[in-house]
């Protein structure tokens, strides 16, 4: 499904400095029963965010009114485990458009790219700088510039470039997805299929 175009995002950020955040935490399996892509944001980080009696856990960052914004900054190895795209949907549906981490799990990263959430992989050092800047001032703004491929902490001016394939960048800037591309080469695919060895 085509999604919102992504160009330059300037926003405050929500810090989640925990390592190995798996997709079962991002969206627990019991919330995967929908047959449509609606309502996943309500259950983002459900069991970290709410007590069993559904009251908010005051010590969890999403329940802290100091922090808000369209950028989620996670710890190392963000999005490991299950391939559930529902995790990326929950992140998007909650209102995030970009996730920053010093290391992403593969499938989660692909899922984000496929639905219009930009995963920005930064050095461990730069991730630390972002966490420190937000700690010093929760209203610190971060600028993510996709065309220029850089991320900047606006309060300090600290900046780092990030990688993304030119194909995926082009898709995100224009709001295209892979099916748009694949549909256009269908004849080539059918020809290929007819010549497979087995």
């Amino acid at each position, binding site marked *: 499904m085509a999604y919102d175009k992504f160009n330059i995002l300037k926003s405050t950020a929500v810090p989640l400095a925990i390592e190995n955040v798996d997709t079962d935490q991002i969206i627990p399996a019991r919330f995967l029963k929908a047959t449509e892509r609606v309502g996943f944001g309500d259950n983002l980080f459900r069991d970290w965010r709410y007590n069993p009696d559904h009251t908010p856990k005051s010590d969890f960052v999403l329940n802290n009114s100091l922090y808000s914004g369209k950028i989620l900054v996670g*710890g190392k190895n963000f999005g490991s485990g299950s*391939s559930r795209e529902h995790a990326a949907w929950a992140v998007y549906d909650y209102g995030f458009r970009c996730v920053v981490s010093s290391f992403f799990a593969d499938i989660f990263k692909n899922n984000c790219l496929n639905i219009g959430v930009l995963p920005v992989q930064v050095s461990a050092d730069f991730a630390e700088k972002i966490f420190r800047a937000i700690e010093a001032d929760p209203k610190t703004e971060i600028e993510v510039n996709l065309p220029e491929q850089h991320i900047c902490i606006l309060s300090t001016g600290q900046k780092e470039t990030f990688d993304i394939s030119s194909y995926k960048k082009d898709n995100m800037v224009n709001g295209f997805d892979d099916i748009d591309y694949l549909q256009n080469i269908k004849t080539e695919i059918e020809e290929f299929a007819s010549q*497979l060895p*087995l």
Partner: protein
Amino acid sequence: MSKTLFDKVWDTHVVRKIEGGPDVLFIDRHLIHEVTSPVAFLGLKSRGIKVLYPKRTFATADHNTPTINQHLPVQDPLSANQLKALESNSNEYGISYWGLGHQKNGIVHVVGPEYGITQPGATIVCGDSHTSTHGAFGAIAFGIGTSEVEMVLATQCIMQEKPKKMRININGQLGKGVTPKDVALFIISQLSTSGATGYFVEYAGEIFENMTMEGRMTVCNLSIEMGARGGMIAPDQTTFDYVKGREFSPKGESWNKALAYYQSLKSDSDAIFDIEYSYDGASIEPMITYGTNPGMGMGISHSIPNANDVEGGAASYAKSLNYMGFNEGESMMGKPVDYVFIGSCTNGRIEDFRAFTSIVKGKKKADHVTAWLVPGSHIVEAQIKEEGLLDILNEAGFTLRQPGCSACLAMNDDKIPAGKYAVSTSNRNFEGRQGPGSRTMLASPLVAAAAAITGVVTDPRTLI
């Protein structure tokens, strides 16, 4: 140029290379289930496109199906709705559908191989990260997201950057009580839960060559738990004997042609891997996890490591141990166990039930332990009965449930209650994975059996 096994299979399936981007990869076989496919079909509908090759996709219901009373209507309306969606989508697009009650229904990664859908040299995807299981046959198999499920339905292709290549060599002999599950948990404990991210793994050496297909599937299944997209083992006579004669396997002259191709599927002797690791099989013990990711595992006789001795942040490590209610330096032996789960795409095959039964035979289940024994498929269920294992299990105080994913991800009613400890043969010990607040220790069927009998974490070697 010399090639790895992975290169050979991948390169054969590249339709087109995109400069500065991914490869367009042709997918031979696509497996779908009720949880990750409905939104993909909605996407097809909104675009007004058909499934390009419906005969290359197979549907089974497994993730949120009940494991008792499968002949009755599914009680949970959301689960029932998801199952209905899979059935109607499969029917509408001409896809083979193995729903509840169908003889071929079962866990997608158990039934795929059983019916010969899984073949050496194939590319196989499914909206489930444990699709890596099928790599046991020398296939490239990996989990995908729902957008990619839609891509495969629409075009039989996905866009992927070619991963780097890792080889893990293990030679020597495995000790008493050490199973393929222990080998996998050992590797993950060495590499960590993210140590193979960005790689596709080939497992090589005597340890894997001597494994049955069931054992190889357990190892490849867990590849994702160290971050690898998938893992594979070069096909050999063990593989060919398993594949031959199954329903969807090539027959007659096609089999001979296929076999010749399968036999070419191995890494060239001078093939280069981006990274290689080697271990001695004799150094592996029965394993158990103590934390909240599969990399937090150790030999069962060891003590829980100190934060200083593990990679990564101390705060995340402390959070993990705190969740489990464990402390640094403690032994796992003798820790109380409330639940035992044997099943899942990791350890729900006949060999796993044979191993479990070998320990519990002639003994009795500990009174306070709740044990869920869930076969991966109806074939496994039938084998358990035919081989007389069920009688032994019943005698020891165990009953058998019906096939499905069950407590591995606890989408159905098979949930471990908050705070309770489970020794589980499944694949993930994440917080709340087996039910909100549940605490999971991953282990082999032998360790699970020892816990079920004694009611505490026990070294199975003392019971063999």
